[in-house]
């Protein structure tokens, strides 16, 4: 049954890689339309959480729902609602970037004509249209980042999950991506963002969650989490990093 309040609901999620516990009984909800910064040091469990939500990781116990759809039992409905911008450039190396978006739209059940229209629109919006016939390897790092966003958005998902989308970007590209993310959130998309840039999280998001050693350390509205401190101070206090 579709849940119209919570975009993501995670309850008692536990995940092991062999004997190493990556997620320790974490529970939290992300409200529809929210912009969440999901922060934590390297190896804290951010990408694992994303992989569980998107179906790229199995887990040992707990439940994960996307708009009420269980990501394991009702994975088709859950995945239809998610757009993922991964950390890696995991594109098909044999396709042009235009073909890449057309195929991606097709997997989501979008007709060819509509797919072409959407791909053109997105490539123009992210200033990649002139590279439409190029293969992704011919693109610069910044262009590849934008292409990841285009691919995540091609099926017009309700939730956008971004795993460090601005890592390694120059200032100009960072601002461009920030601008797009703010606009998408205003249009009603729920955004789940992981980043190591505190400034990015502080500037863009409304809710802050911090994970450390696989445990949720805090989650709440930005103002409540910060309490007149900088995010960097709060982050260092919670994670114990000096």
């Amino acid at each position: 049954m579709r849940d119209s309040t919570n975009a993501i609901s995670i309850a008692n999620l536990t995940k092991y890689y062999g004997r190493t516990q990556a997620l320790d009984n974490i529970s939290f909800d992300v409200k529809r339309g929210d912009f969440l910064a999901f922060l934590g040091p390297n190896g804290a469990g951010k990408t694992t959480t994303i992989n569980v939500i998107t179906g790229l990781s199995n887990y040992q116990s707990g439940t994960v729902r996307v708009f009420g759809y269980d990501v394991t039992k009702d994975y088709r409905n859950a995945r239809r609602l998610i757009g993922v911008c991964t950390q890696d450039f995991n594109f098909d190396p044999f396709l042009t970037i235009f073909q890449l978006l057309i195929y991606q739209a097709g997997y989501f059940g979008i007709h060819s004509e509509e797919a072409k229209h959407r791909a053109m629109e997105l490539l123009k919006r992210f200033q990649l249209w002139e590279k439409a016939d190029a293969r992704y390897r011919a693109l610069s790092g910044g262009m590849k980042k934008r292409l990841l966003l285009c691919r995540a958005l091609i099926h017009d998902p309700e939730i956008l999950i971004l795993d460090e989308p601005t890592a390694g970007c120059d200032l100009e590209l960072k601002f461009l991506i920030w601008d797009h993310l703010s606009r998408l959130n205003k249009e009603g998309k729920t955004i789940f963002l992981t980043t190591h840039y505190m400034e990015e999280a502080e500037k863009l998001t409304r809710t802050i969650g911090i994970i450390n050693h696989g445990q949720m350390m805090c989650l709440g509205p930005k103002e409540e989490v910060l309490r007149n401190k900088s995010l960097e101070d709060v982050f260092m206090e919670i994670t114990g990093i000096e």
Partner: protein
Amino acid sequence: MLKLITNPIGLATLAKREIVRFLVVSVQTIFPPWISSLMFMYIFGIALGARVAFPIEGMSYLQFIIPGLMTMHLISSSYENTAASLFIGRWHNNIQEVLLSPLSYFEMVLGLLAGGIARGILICTGVFCISQIFFRQGISHPLVLVYFTLMISVIFSCIGLLAALWAEDFGMVNLWNVYVIFPAVLLGGVFHPLAMLPRPLQILSHFNPIHYLMSGMRYAVIGYSDQNLFLCAGLALVMACAFGFITVYLFKKGYKLRS
């Protein structure tokens, strides 16, 4: 069946991608087996065939090896296509494009199989057309041929996917083909009828499933078989269902696909 396919556009898209992938590199994927078949037919069928004391009356040696070559290339093309496609997808991590989509696991497997089946059938048809240069003959049982072509391509496309899931590097992808499938294909009767083998090898051939698949194909093309047709057809169906089931199960479990 209708319930199993809930995303027909997604399935068609994946199938199209798999078919286009081997068509655009036809120099590597389509022409080599056709050229090697032409050589086999000329050397074994024409140059050496006339000197072989062939034990089946009313049939030339060339006529006998044509369905064997069709089956051999059907098997290798189906296997190579799915094995290469899935392993490259795992290697570049772009298999995630499919794994993140709302395709069911059954649809994912079916879409990936489409490339192997299409390539296998294309190669097999081409080998038959080439054979017409040397020996003009029709297909004895066309419907039986459709059945066996489809079953064999499904079986070996599934085995290709399983090999790609199991493999950790490019060398491992081809291990099964080199050490298991190709020897079993040759011993299965590409170039010889059962009667030409010494008794112990004849007995051993009864335990080689590829021998039954080969016999079914041979019956379909030239009307001759070493084995009971129903046994061959039944075994082909059981193998196709079993390998299909195992492949979908491993996709569902995320074996080497999900962390």
